[in-house]
């Protein structure tokens, strides 16, 4: 078996093991941070180097192709970025820092396996591994009760969603005798009209809707974002979303577009998620809760791309995964800088950010404009791709509702930007002292958001090829 193509996963696993042993050594946050940056950096390089790797491992239960490798690179970049902003990890007690890095890397490893898994068993256990490490990361939040009720809620909703998914997978397997995706993809279009197959697919998608915070399973998102440490919330809103988009694409590709019921089902969920997310976000005072509701809305936009089940739709969904990764992470970078003490942050606390730290205010503004879909940011390109893919399939009403939602969302994004740029800073709020390197990171991210927005062609070519590998 060819171990080279498995190297990103091995890097990740090695990092996790290093931190397992470091958790037994004396507490030293500085050392943990440096080790984490170095090791995750190596993993990112390994994944970028192996982006064109191809092959099948473990008796065909694990498939490595351009599709999975592109997602793995995104995941590892997400991990690396989250590790970079963990230098002032004040939301978590010092003695748990090695555990924090260990759980983060194991979660990334699980998500990487999730995007490569092509057997229902591997898919299920990888999903469970990533969910459990996230539950524990949420509990790690320092303080008495923050994280208690949100952690419990996260756990109960997550476990019930994955049990539902498991039952759906059981129905699928029982109806088709296919556990490998490559068999399922051949069998399902022929039996799609049996009720148990449709029910099985719908239930199986539930587990991923939970991770993605799509409508019926979105309750946890605001509480968990609020209850978890900033870095953990950043991870949940970036890397874990990216992986789920990959799996949803794989699952949707299984039907081959043969079922209109499933498309209608997804369209309804997309519309409700967008609307609920955007309307509730308007009323939010806490910045992290606002970001949670906005990610519920963005899950709706991605679903529009996914339910096209066409190469254009898949390309747009993958591109949107990258978009969400960059934009959400930039928002959380600012959150971590402004709320360096690890406490939650009200929107009012952003007042006068442009005086306290111009670069952070600029980063926040670019990211929020990107989320709202204003050109020339990457967010505009992402939305444009999704909407054109949906138009090509003739879903005009869906696109219209999504456009309407984009307008609603503009309102609350502008409220935040207004707080950062137009309000005067509160008394006694001096200049912000960002962590070393945070300014450079923010600048790089802003440049990337705008540059990819203006000239997306090279990345789009890669993503288009990845979407082809999905077929």
């Amino acid at each position, binding site marked *: 078996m060819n171990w080279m193509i498995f190297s990103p996963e091995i890097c990740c696993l090695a990092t996790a093991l290093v931190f397992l042993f470091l958790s037994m050594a004396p507490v030293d946050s500085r050392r943990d941070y440096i080790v984490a940056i170095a090791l995750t950096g190596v993993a990112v390089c390994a994944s970028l180097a192996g982006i064109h790797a191809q092959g099948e491992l473990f*008796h065909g239960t694990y498939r490595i192709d351009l599709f999975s490798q592109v997602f793995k690179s995104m995941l590892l970049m997400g991990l690396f970025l989250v590790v970079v902003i963990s230098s002032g990890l004040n939301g978590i007690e010092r003695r748990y820092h090695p555990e924090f890095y260990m759980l983060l890397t194991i979660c990334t490893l699980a998500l990487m*396996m999730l995007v490569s898994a092509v057997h229902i068993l*591997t898919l299920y256990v990888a999903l469970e591994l990533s969910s*459990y490490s996230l539950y524990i990361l949420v509990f*790690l939040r320092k303080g*008495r009760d923050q994280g208690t009720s949100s952690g419990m809620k996260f756990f109960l909703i997550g476990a019930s969603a994955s049990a539902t998914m498991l039952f759906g997978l059981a129905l699928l397997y029982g109806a088709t005798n296919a556990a490998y995706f490559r068999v399922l993809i051949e069998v399902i279009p022929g039996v799609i009209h049996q009720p148990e197959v449709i029910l099985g697919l719908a239930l199986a998608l539930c587990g991923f809707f939970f991770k993605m915070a799509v409508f019926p399973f979105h309750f946890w998102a605001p509480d968990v974002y609020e209850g978890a440490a900033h870095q953990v919330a950043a991870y949940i809103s970036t890397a874990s979303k990216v992986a789920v988009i990959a799996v949803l694409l794989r699952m949707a590709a299984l039907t081959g577009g043969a079922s209109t019921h499933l498309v209608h089902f997804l369209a309804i969920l997309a519309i409700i998620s967008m609307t609920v997310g955007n309307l509730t976000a308007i009323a939010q005072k806490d910045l992290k809760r606002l970001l949670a509701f906005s990610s519920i809305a963005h899950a709706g936009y991605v679903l529009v791309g996914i339910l096209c089940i066409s190469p254009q739709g898949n390309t747009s969904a993958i591109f949107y995964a990258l978009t969400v990764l960059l934009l959400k992470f930039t928002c959380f970078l600012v959150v971590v800088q402004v709320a360096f003490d690890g406490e939650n942050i009200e929107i009012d606390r952003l007042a006068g950010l442009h005086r306290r730290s111009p670069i952070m205010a600029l980063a926040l503004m670019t990211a929020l404009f990107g989320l709202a879909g204003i050109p020339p940011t990457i967010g505009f390109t992402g939305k444009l791709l999704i909407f054109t893919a949906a138009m090509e399939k003739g879903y005009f009403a869906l696109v219209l509702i999504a456009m309407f939602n984009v307008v609603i969302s503009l309102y609350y994004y502008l409220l935040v930007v207004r707080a950062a740029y137009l309000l005067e800073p509160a008394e006694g709020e001096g200049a912000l002292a960002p962590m070393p390197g945070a300014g450079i990171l923010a600048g790089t991210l802003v440049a990337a958001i705008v540059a990819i927005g203006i000239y997306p062609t090279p990345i789009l070519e890669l993503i288009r090829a990845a979407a082809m590998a999905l077929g």
Partner: protein
Amino acid sequence: MTIYSTLFYLLAVLILASTAIAVTRRNMVHAVIYLVISFFGSALLFYLFGAPLLAALEVIIYAGAIMILFLFIVMMLRMEGLEDRLFPLKQWLPAVGVCFVYGMVLVMLIVSDTTDAPPMPAAAAAPATFGQFLFQRHWLAIEIVSMLLLIALVGVLRLGRDAGGKTRPESEVAQ
């Protein structure tokens, strides 16, 4: 009706009845005991379906370890006598709603399945064959599950270490 199908129906009635009793008990100790019976029934069902290893594991892990853990916790937290107000009306509605929709689908499923599907032939997987299959085909999944258990260990350790958060300072003072 063969002896096997008679056995299946008997077990199905046993499992469904004991589970139904379990989920409606107020007293949690009773609920757990009824569930143990239900899981024993499932274990027998697994044996009937030709999975002797799984039947043993179901008894050892599900009915044994997991349910006993529940029993420990219920007794440790002294909740045997705690009266759980059964089914508050507020939660009745979504529960009944979800179950009704799901039940309808299930009924549809049964009605639509009128084709005389042949009864499944009996078969048995020898534990050795099963183990070989597992370690040849699915050892990646085994590794993932082993990591899952490691993570659960870390999580419980963290929860356990902090569990006395409120009482520990007092006990330290007492020392």
